[in-house]
């Protein structure tokens, strides 16, 4: 939506539309703007609930104001430290690996010169992205079960079968690995696009200077991808407090609460006992504020490092 606005003003500045034409464009924008207003701006007022003891029957205006009580409550919970740490660790690991793996994959895929092979691999690794975690959780559970293929490998090498999903040493690793497996194909699209934009002349010049394939990748491909990588990192930083509710909710169990219980799953369970609107909103607002600060910070950092930010 934001990009649309920008395009609009930029376009308007370059071409001198007659007033009526402009009005037509504005009219065409109306549905989008109304949607934005109804579904983004209006619900923002709901955040007020975070500072209330919200009772649905009394509504926002009738419920009692409690100041920062709800936030204090969240941080006074005995598990709040644990779930906060879990969330950060899992989300951070996902952030890192969801950049490294897709970049590597994009570079490798780019080296394949047979068109049909390239398309084939690209399509195959896309697929899991389109499946929901509810479905994939069954697949993952079976793959990592005692009689699953991973344990077949472990026992073939003489090890004891491991219950990967019920072991605090393994749970986070499985979560991060399966998430990367699901998303790397899709995430690599951006990098593949960036790769096609690199001036082939650079490679030619480098090979004339005697650089081999690896050196070319290191000194031409990676630096050329850097702006894209920084951009993607900055965008993803906003999700640092979203460690992936649907994935973890479908895969965890009480034994791995210690390493796998994240903010979202914890709040979900609190909400299940009694409809705690205010606490849910307080957590949501807290997460939004942190994400906002991180994105702004990352944007500023990116501007400083590369000279260009997102906005």
């Amino acid at each position, binding site marked *: 939506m934001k990009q649309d606005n920008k395009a609009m003003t930029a376009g308007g500045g370059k071409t001198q539309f007659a007033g009526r034409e402009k009005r037509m464009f504005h009219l065409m924008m109306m549905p989008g703007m109304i949607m934005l207003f109804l579904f983004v701006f*209006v*619900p923002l*007022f*709901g955040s007020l609930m975070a500072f209330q003891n919200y*009772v*649905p*029957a*009394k*509504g*926002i*205006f*009738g419920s009692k104001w409690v100041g920062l009580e709800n936030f204090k*409550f969240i941080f006074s*919970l*005995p*598990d709040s430290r644990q779930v906060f740490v879990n969330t950060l660790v899992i989300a951070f690991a996902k952030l890192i690996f969801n950049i490294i793996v897709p970049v590597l994959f994009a570079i490798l895929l780019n080296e394949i010169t047979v068109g049909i092979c390239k398309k084939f691999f690209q399509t195959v690794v896309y697929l899991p992205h389109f499946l929901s975690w509810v479905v994939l959780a*069954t697949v993952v*559970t079976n793959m990592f*079960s*005692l009689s699953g293929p991973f344990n077949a490998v472990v026992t073939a090498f003489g090890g004891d079968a491991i*219950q990967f*999903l*019920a072991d605090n040493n393994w749970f986070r690793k499985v979560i991060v690995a399966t998430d990367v497996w699901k998303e790397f194909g899709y995430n690599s699209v951006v990098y593949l696009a960036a790769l096609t934009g690199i001036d082939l002349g650079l490679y030619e010049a480098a090979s004339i200077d005697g650089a081999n394939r690896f050196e070319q990748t290191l000194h031409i491909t990676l630096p050329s991808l850097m702006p894209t990588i920084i951009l993607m990192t900055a965008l993803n930083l906003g999700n640092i407090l979203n460690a992936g509710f649907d994935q973890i909710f479908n895969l965890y*169990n*009480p*034994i791995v*609460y*210690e390493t796998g*219980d994240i903010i979202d799953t*914890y709040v979900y*369970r*609190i909400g*299940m*006992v*009694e409809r*705690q609107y205010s*606490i849910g909103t307080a957590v949501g607002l807290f997460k939004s504020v942190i994400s906002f600060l991180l994105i702004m910070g990352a944007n500023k950092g990116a501007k400083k490092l590369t000279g260009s930010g997102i906005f």
Partner: protein
Amino acid sequence: MKRKTLGLMLATAMIVTCVTGCGKSDEDFTANMSDDEKAAWEAAANDPYGKYPELVTYTTGYVLTSQGADTLSGTSYENDTQTDNAYTRYIRNLINVQNENTFEAQAGDDYDQKVSLAIAAQDIPDIMHVADYSTLVELVENDMVADLTDIYNNLACDTVKSSYESYGANNPLNAATFDGKIMAIPKTQLSDGQDFLWLRKDWLDNLGLEEPSTMDEVADVLRAFIDNDPDGNGQADTVGLAVLPTVYGGYPNNHFGVDNIFTAFDAYPEVWIKDSEGKAVYGSVQPEMKDALQLLADWYKEGLIDKEFTTRTTDDIVALISGGQCGAYIGPWWSPFNPAQTASYANKDAEWVNVSAPVGSDGKINAINTKPYAGFVVVRKGYEHPEIAMKIVNINSEYAKQDTSDAANEIMENQTIAYFNWPLYCQVQPGNNAEIMTANVKAVLDGSADVSTLDTEELGYYEAAVRYQDAVAAGQKADSADYSQYMSRLVAINKFAEEPANFMTPSYFETSETMKTKWASLEKLEQQTILKIIVGEADMSSFDEFVANWTSAGGQTITDEINEELSAK
């Protein structure tokens, strides 16, 4: 947002009208009557089924159920409404009472919201259904509902009274009684009886095993099910007892929960029990838990319970059982309806049997009573005809069932098309209603009673049983729907009477104030500890640690709160 503002305006308007208009309606309606008229009204009011001299209209909230009016289209009831349908016409003809609906809403959140709104606006209908206990408490504390003690004592019909009494110590009226006064008419929740150990009968037969009873016998059967290749396929591909990843809870509506193993040791996890001094205490933190946990830990080590139970979802367990890899689980009487059984019956030729095991020290299964009420009917304080509530519940629970007039048949017919509910949404039935129905059907099957003695519901069970028995007699496999009906209604329920269980009545069923915010973290603590002990990741000393943590992290506050709430009644 707009809707909320509108709601707020409405609520404000209601408060204003209430402030200005309340009290008027509470004038004595007999003020301008002659003595004869007064006597006629009084007689009607004091007879359980007395007809009023003139039409009485009461305001109410109408609870709609999912099988609503839409399914009536195309029938003669097509134009029925929530103020004019088979039920309301019947009540009107019988006692000259008509409902006027202040609000109509689907059972569940929708209806509860309307009730909350009405309470917040201090303007509740004359008579209404409230779904949960906390709302009833709120109404009583705010002095908004009438004392129904005299009305109950004078007007409740025998069926209603005996139904409540059939719950014994778990009488639903207890919940509606405050300071010795009956403040509401509770809607009954049928007892679901005890859980059974469901075993593959064909496996038992293959291995020449007897049906187990004690804990050791159960262990022997499980051992044989794992080691001795019960399905005869030459592979060690069977797992032991299926166990839910949460282990227990929600008795007995929880398939694969192993509560019965705990109760056999007199441990009652996840319910509030009474200690020796009569105080409410939480079952999961009592020392009796240790014996059960030790046993489960031993069983887990030996593989007698599914090694991977912590990571299995309910669907995984169902797949395991219906795929013929597991032949033992704990479940309720309607378990033959669970896809685990229907699918294994249809595809794997499985035969199942429900066994009363593992038993406690006196040779019986220890079971837990469930919440005996499923809502309450309350009357606005100051309403001039409070007895109407009791009368409608009487009609619904007794009169209409015995009535064979056309009007009563109309209700029956209507019911089979759609469940267009009785106003007030309250029926009082004996706790063991399922057992009574089974006995009735069995009597007809045995030939000791005639088919005509069965009501519509019972007739359905009877017909399914006949179809099942015919198929078996002909050496064919019965339809799996008939199998489920026969196995649950006739075989499983029959054991309620033949092999009775001990029932423990929890002291508290509700959610206390602190539970709303702290329960999630206490539950986390509990589940973590229990699972770690069972899978051997932690030893028994961590249980004591858990109890200490649980107590200090809010458990004590909640216990005190509940005891205070209970002693206040």
